[in-house]
């Protein structure tokens, strides 16, 4: 079944088509949710919420762009909603208003496995983790990220700069000692 036919069937709420779509994207989207949360259970909760939104709103997908990217945006928004809603997350989601920090232009070689990098991102302070996910991984602009997190664009820039520097430092440290990496899966 091609993607357009699959979408059409999903709009009709055909369970088999919905499950096919879920099977195609669930594992990738779980990684997205996992990067924004603290544990796999919360990530699965977000994934569940996200897919319900996907299927309820799939009629609004107008075929402009890739379906995977559209689903990913829903997962990111669902993740942000989740962490804003739950106190164990929103207490940590603090963005200090600080002066503009010069964004580091360091571009170190990244020779780590995906899971290791994901774990390093998740080890960042929660604010850093969130802003780096939005800008560094998802590719949102500072303006978009600022709007999503209800912060100023300046704060977004400074937070991202610090998050990036912190992550690079971690990667460089860990790259020199690969034995420090655990198998997190």
């Amino acid at each position: 079944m091609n993607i357009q036919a699959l979408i059409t069937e999903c709009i009709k709420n055909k369970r088999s088509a919905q499950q096919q779509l879920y099977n195609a994207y669930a594992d990738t989207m779980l990684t997205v949710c996992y990067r924004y949360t603290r544990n796999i259970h919360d990530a699965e909760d977000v994934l569940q919420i996200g897919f319900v939104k996907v299927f309820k709103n799939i009629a609004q997908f107008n075929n402009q762009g890739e379906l995977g990217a559209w689903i990913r945006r829903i997962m990111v928004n669902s993740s942000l909603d989740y962490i804003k809603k739950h106190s164990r997350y929103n207490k940590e989601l603090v963005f200090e208003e600080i002066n503009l920090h010069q964004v580091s232009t360091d571009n170190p070689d990244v020779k780590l496995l995906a899971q290791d990098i994901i774990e390093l991102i998740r080890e960042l302070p929660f604010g850093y983790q969130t802003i780096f996910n939005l800008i560094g991984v998802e590719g949102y602009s500072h303006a978009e990220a600022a709007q999503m997190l209800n912060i100023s664009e300046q704060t977004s820039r400074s937070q991202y700069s610090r998050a990036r520097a912190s992550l690079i430092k971690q990667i460089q440290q860990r790259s020199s000692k690969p034995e420090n990496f655990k198998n997190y899966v």
Partner: protein
Amino acid sequence: MSNQFEKDIQDIIGNHKMHASPDLWQQIEPQLPEEKKRRKAIIWWAFAASLLTGSCLIYHYQNNHKAERSEDLVAHTTKAINENENITGETNLLPRKEDLTKNNNRSNQPFTEVEQKNKGNTAPFKTRQNKTASTGNITIPTSPNNQIQLTAPTHQTELFTHAKTNSLVNDQTDKLLYASNTGTDGNISNNIKANNTETILNRHPDSTTNTTGILLEDMQPENLGSTLTGIIQHDTLLALHTDSGSSKKEDIQKISKKGKWQVYASAGASNTNKLLSLITHSASPQYLDNSSTIPNNSGSYNGTYSYGRVNKPITSLSLQLAVQRKFIIGRHFEWYVGTQMSYLSNLQERGTTKDTSFTSGEKSVNTIYRGGNIVKEKNHNINIGLLLGINYLINPKGKHPFYLNGGLMPVYSISQKQIHVSNTASFLFYNNNLNNRFNLAADAGINWQFSKKSALGIQGQLFMLSNTKKSDNTVMSNKWKSLQIKYTYTL
């Protein structure tokens, strides 16, 4: 951001995959809107239920008119029936000892006296003296060795005419109940059942009512709760019951994240005599309370009279609408609160019967006439009730979930002006391995109803979940089949 660092990060983790829990889809599925096709299914079910209900109403209406005519004919017999008795109290409908004594005493009186007493008001039963007096004039063709030789229908008509002429049967005897011929000369050896043939169940009047049977149920968890139920019981030939509503049957197997409303609507209909509808109750608590043998006079025949009472539902119609709300509290508890309204209508045959049996020749022919005074009665019952229930779920997301259920349902019968309270307790255990083609579940429980007459029920159910899989091994759909064994004991 278009720095190389960000690009590398995106390349490495952009399409990284983690493995989602296998049962995650099962948690998502109940939260999704229903397929539009399902709505069509509901419409079809509703249409079928309406058709069934409409047919039964028409039949019900027709029977009601017949009943009124019948009441005119046998108005005098209504005195023999305690009209204030509770229609559901089956033993109340059976003859009381004082009635039987009365009948026996009457049978010892000369018929002429009774007839005089009831002049203009035909007595329901003829007396023994009258029977004896009228014997002896029937001519039955016999073979050289005194065996019946003519065809059975002719002979039956002849016997019947003779019986009427000689007042062996009363005016209400208008049908031949059962006739059998067991000729010994080789010419006749058959059993003939006339149009109104019935199987008479002899049951002691003080016996309790027990029902036991097997219920086959086809539940489709992924749709809106349409079920098709067939019931086979030892005193029920066939029953068909339909349910449709917006509830989802898979609620019995998993917790949904949000509480929700559930609506059940059901309609059932029954018929005893004709195959118009699909439920047959043949309770017929009938027994023989008196008999006498007519002397074999002139070698013609022997006669036996039998008296009894009939309480037999002919048609019944039930409609039910229930609304309930489920609340999820924590991980392990589900609460149900709801209300229901139901309507039950019965058309019943009630009254006394008299069977007149003739035996002619040497075991040659045995003919039974059904007479008596049977009244068709119509009853309506409207109930309103509340429903309170709780499910305790052990290991709900595991492979072997275990459910404990308890429920309480007080129902007020507007017609009977009394409250019935029923409570249930049951448990459900099942295997939830989606990799299996079939999974099994078992359910067992008891229910107890308090009212004028209490009832204790025990039931067990065996479910089978069949999974349909696609070529890539993902589960497409699943369906539940169940086999239910029920036993209800009325105290």
